[in-house]
């Protein structure tokens, strides 16, 4: 069987903390209705982090994903969940404390992603 190379990187905690902060800001802005389009600046920062800041021959950068509202099951190892409420079936992510952070890197000419921080989430049975 052919082996898949698994990316083995140790990302300094400060980078992750930095990404988590950007995520927090983005989360807070979503509650505001503001005229200064702060979200544009956030998107720009995210773009820089994803494509420019940590650019090297093999890596591209960091990006995050907010899994709010997505389905949750025990096969999702990209999230660390705490179950709220009574049920354990048909779970939905209702709160995201930390997002999923990926590192993108090149393998040959393909862009690959690897998780460097799983999300920390609260999940609950979906109201039908």
């Amino acid at each position, binding site marked *: 069987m052919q082996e898949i190379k698994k990316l083995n990187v140790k990302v300094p905690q400060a980078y992750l903390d930095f990404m988590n902060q950007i995520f927090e800001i983005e989360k807070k802005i979503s509650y505001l209705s503001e005229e200064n389009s702060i979200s*544009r600046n956030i*998107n720009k920062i995210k773009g820089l982090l994803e494509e420019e800041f940590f650019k090297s021959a093999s890596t591209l950068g960091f990006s995050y994903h907010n899994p709010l509202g997505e389905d949750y099951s025990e*096969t999702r*190892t990209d999230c660390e969940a705490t179950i709220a409420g009574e049920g354990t079936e048909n779970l939905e992510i209702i709160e995201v404390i930390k997002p999923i952070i990926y590192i993108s890197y090149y393998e040959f000419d393909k862009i690959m992603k690897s998780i460097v921080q799983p999300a920390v989430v609260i999940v609950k049975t979906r109201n039908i």
Partner: protein
Amino acid sequence: MESTINFGIDLGTTNSAIAKFVKGEVVIFSNPQDYGRNTLPSVVSYRKDKIIVGNKAKEFLEKDPKSVVGVFKRKMGTTESFKIKSINESKTPIELSAQVLKELKTFVNTGDNLDSTVLTIPASFDTIQSNATKEAGLQAGFKQVVLLQEPIAASLAYANMKKERELKDGQWLVYDLGGGTFDVALIKINEGEMKVLDHEGDNFLGGADFDNMIVEKILIPKIIQEYSFTNLEEEMKSASGKYNAKYYVLLRRAEEAKITLSSKTSAEIVIDGFEDEEGNEVDMEIVITRSEFNELIKQNIDGTIDMIKKIITRNSLKPNDIQFTLMVGGSTYIPYVRTRVEEVLQIPVNCEIDPTTAVAIGAAYYAATKPKEANKDGLPKKDTSISIKASYNKASKEKEELFAARITGNVENLSYRIVRQDGGYDSGLKKLSDRINEDLPLVDGAYNFFTLTVYDSQNNIIETDLEPIGINSGFGISGQPIPEDICLEVDDLDNPGRTRLKLIFQKNSILPLRSSTISFPLNKGMIKGNEADYIFINILEGSQHSLPEANKGIGFMEIYGTQLTRDVAKGSDIEISIAISESRDITINAYLNMADQEFKQTFNPKARHTPIEFLKEQVIDLSNKLEEEIQEATDNEDFETAATLNKLKKEMDQVNSDTENLTNDDVTDKRYQLEDKKRKIAQEIDAATKDKRIQQVKAHYYEIKDDCLKMLDDHGNDHERKTFNDIIAQEVAFFATNSPMKIQEKSDELSSIASRIRWRTPNFLKGVFSWCKNNQTRMNDQSQAKSLIDAGNFAIESENWERLAEINSGLLNLLPKGAEKEATTRIGFGL
């Protein structure tokens, strides 16, 4: 084959870990499903079709206790068994422990055949409990299981870290406070033999209790103080409570704060995102100090100390009979636990070993001294190899993709597991059958690789012939490549007044495409309401190495002063992003930072957008350029080129007069024809003069290269030398592109190396400084200029060149706009 056991397993009540002794050191295997964490929660979950062990099982422990089991270690050796609702079967603590052990086997990535191990047990385990643990090891497929008491394992880890295999005779305590259990043991060493003399413990005390206390005793009271809630605590803790989800958020925050308090003296907890009963938004920051936290857990810690006192009294010891208290378990990271235990008992605490992995590490050291028993059964290995035929879409834009496989061979008692390479998906261990179907979740915009591994009943890997499962969820699956480069026309800073191309999408990129945002400073200001002020954004299709005029315009957007909500200054940023859909619609999105305005336009290339005004401008530019080239070729006595260009001139003149005759509202397709003609002429000019331009840039390149080399020899450092050599190594390649722009780019890179070095050379810095001094009168802030110049004189005297460089840049900043450039060209540092 190795002759000693070498593997050690800490089969803990709450967490387990596996380590191996390799050439004098112990390596601890990390949990492949848990981002480098070394431990596996000792929790097992049963589903209809699979068994899950570890973190994912733990998440369901509290809410689905009928199918998920934890802390079964406490029941080892009893006849009690756990009824599992989902599979309608009962599982014994031995079977559950065996599942944890089997899962730990999958951590081992060294290709070892795990047939023997050391397993640790609490000091309190009696013979029956110990035998039960051994049985669990055998059920997990180990042929040889050696037991070791946890406090001894921790002590061994300490002894080996100290490189003192033979510890002095004496006694010490092992204080083990983990996530959910507490144990303390008295260890005696006598002539090299280590023995547990006494022990005590509390099966219901650990770090999780501390998190709970923070929420109950600090956070909830403070929230109630500020906001109106009638029954917040109950609404939070009851599963059907209104704020149940918030309770878990608070627990997480409390845990973070607890960890912070181990290294800092205070921690903040932000509480927000819900409303109180009067509709007020809860938004508060609660600061917890270390002393508050200490006060909170004091009673619990004192409880553990009382147990130690009992041991001491029972064994008729005095505190100074005990050498130290060895701290083990994650909760001993808490400073208060360390100081309180030391303070009350007057016995020094020892925190030198990693408290979370010490037991597994000690077990591995012990394993290295235990010989392996010969393979008793001696039977040849069964040929269990099986063949898997898989079918799935190799490219998908769905969130999930169905994976189906047919298995040939004997699948009895085998199981399989599929994991995604980035660590984001784990199917869990499932029973293998002749056919399997699995929905695999995909990460958008990337290649997703999955591995399917088949295990036997004891979690040994069975070879299969299946290749890794690769599914592309990137952009452009089954999309079409673009036939030419797509570029943006930008100002050519090296040739004022000219433009060049900036590559946005490379030829053969797959549609749809979306560029990252490109920022440029505006080269001119625009006044609100002024129609004469405008910006053009021009997207061209064609080789990135040719002249802008030679390429086909496919998207063109104008922004006029009349559209602005405020004036924008020269030098303020414009952000441009470009997207091309699968149906080739081109969308230009431009954003003016200063005005905070966004402009968006979508083009369908079938209806080409060519404003006549812009065409006229281009035609004039091109004919001027042609004139210049003819003149230059004639001057250089390059008559061949001159003749070619003169021939073009006739066509150019025709295009010129035709364009001039076009009215601005011409509706015929004449403008497109003229544009095509213009483009063809530009291509021909490009071809005829390319040699010349290449010669020029090459000459320029060599000049800069020499200069840079000289600077490097005299003042360069290794890093700069490496950057230089990297560029030189590509020389053949970028010369071969025959692209003046590419070569120019490399010249720029070299000259930036040279200028970086130059900024460190005393002579240059002195030169800049004296130029600034001469221009002092023009500086914006005279008093600051004067103090900088004084400082500069001093820096020269004391030969502090770093300081001088800082002063120079300070001085240059004081110059009026534009004068700075003057300095740049005059002194010759291309910054």
